[in-house]
């Protein structure tokens, strides 16, 4: 049983085949990167895995369970969290509250019990707050906890998004271009962070165009082009692959 298994996955937009007969798997405890030219279908694949887009055909299994067609929140409850290529933080909420939303999947009190403050609501609320703080401290954002998330500088918004995803204590985290807009120093910090995430027991699935980062930290690399899988391998294998070089990397790499 693979940790995440994608079988014959397809997604069309009108006549366009954004993802096409994709077969791939992710192994637990490793960092897997997905690369490929712009418009290759990477973000679409992430959207399919997290249920944000319905699949056209194909199946997705997470820890052996068929998650195809499940709504996004159910998939999140199974332990899949993600960040977005275009940052999607809740700019109407504070930094802390953003992360507290991340703990949503680890709490359960509903509208009714919340309204009546039934026993357990307060302690759960305290749990959520404490957890959120834990992750803010890890990401070194705790001093900004009460700030409006929308006013954070760009780089910190990216980190906040990761904190929010981690607060769900996911088994698998999907990161869509986490390094975009960061300079090399910041990118270096990011690679350290990603390794930390892995060490904390979360499997990482990553889309990124920064080859230095990808080649440095990933164990496996999946390469897409025009919706198709063109190859899969270790960084050194992929770097030497002719198809990858012509379609994506260019000569120098």
């Amino acid at each position, binding site marked *: 049983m693979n940790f995440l298994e994608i079988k014959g996955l397809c997604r069309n*937009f009108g006549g*366009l085949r954004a993802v096409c007969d994709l077969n791939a798997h992710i192994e637990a405890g490793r960092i897997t990167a997905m*690369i*490929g*030219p*712009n*418009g*290759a279908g*990477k*973000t*679409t694949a992430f959207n399919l895995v997290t249920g944000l887009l319905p699949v056209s055909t194909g199946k997705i299994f997470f820890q052996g369970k068929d998650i195809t067609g499940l709504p996004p929140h159910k998939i999140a409850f199974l332990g899949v969290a993600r960040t977005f*290529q*275009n940052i999607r933080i809740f700019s109407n909420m504070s930094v802390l509250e953003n992360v507290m939303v991340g703990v949503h999947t680890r709490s359960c009190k509903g509208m009714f019990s919340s309204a009546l403050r039934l026993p357990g609501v307060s302690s759960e609320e305290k749990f959520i707050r404490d957890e959120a703080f834990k992750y803010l401290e890890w*990401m*070194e954002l705790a*001093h900004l906890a009460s700030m409006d998330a929308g006013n954070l*500088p*760009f*780089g*910190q918004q990216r*980190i906040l998004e990761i904190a929010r995803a981690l607060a769900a204590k996911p088994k698998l985290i999907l990161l869509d*271009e986490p390094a*975009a*807009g*960061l*300079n*090399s*120093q*910041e*990118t*270096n*910090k990011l690679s*350290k*962070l990603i390794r930390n995430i892995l060490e904390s027991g979360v499997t990482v699935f990553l889309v990124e*165009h920064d*080859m230095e980062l990808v080649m440095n930290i990933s164990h496996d690399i999946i390469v897409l082009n025009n919706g198709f899988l063109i190859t899969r391998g270790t960084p050194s294998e992929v770097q030497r692959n002719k198809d990858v070089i012509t*379609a*994506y*990397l*260019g000569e120098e*790499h």
Partner: protein
Amino acid sequence: MLVIKNLEAYYDRIQALKGITIHISKGEVVSLIGANGAGKTTTLHAISGLLKHIEGEILLDGRSIKNTAPEKIVGMGIAQSPEGRHVFAPLDVLDNLRLGAYIRSDRQETARDIEWIFELFPRLAERRNNLAGTLSGGEQQMLAFGRALMSRPKILLLDEPSTGLAPLIIKEIYSVIEQIKRDGKTILLVEQNAKLALKVSDRAYVLETGKVVLSGTSSELVQSQDIQRAYLGSSVDGFLGK
């Protein structure tokens, strides 16, 4: 050709630029580098006339363009490919490019330029009738870049044009930058990827918290120890600074 003297900019009460002096000569490629929040985007916005609250001077060919309406600045030949892409999401790719040529009235020339953009980015050509909002991140970046070219600017302001682009396309974009530089155009380039930026540019300025802390020709800067450490990413100290 473009001279900025003691530029200060404010967002409400926050001062984002604290007196920046920059000059760009005709035909030059100049890059601005600096950490997150240093004020690079703010500088470009100030030049494009998007900010209300600025002080200091911005001169184009000796004439002040401070407090000039943004559309007039575009008319004077300054175009920008903004950070965060800012494509017109509910319009299709063709319309986005046509609007890039909004200030021009030569229909046929415009059509030809659009074809040229499509040659540069075949990916866009395939998507010409798709709504810009449905494009992938990288495709949108290409579109924003192409749209800025469509006004046939004298000065091109590029804010992180390589964000989210595949390595091959980055090369493509940089070869375009070199090509338009050869055509005699002037470019002010903001890049996170300092290595790349220094490679194409003649000169560069380094910004830090709203001030120019270092400037010089690109080749000088590449050698500089400070730059090496801070922006070219050789050593890493500390984790996630403030």
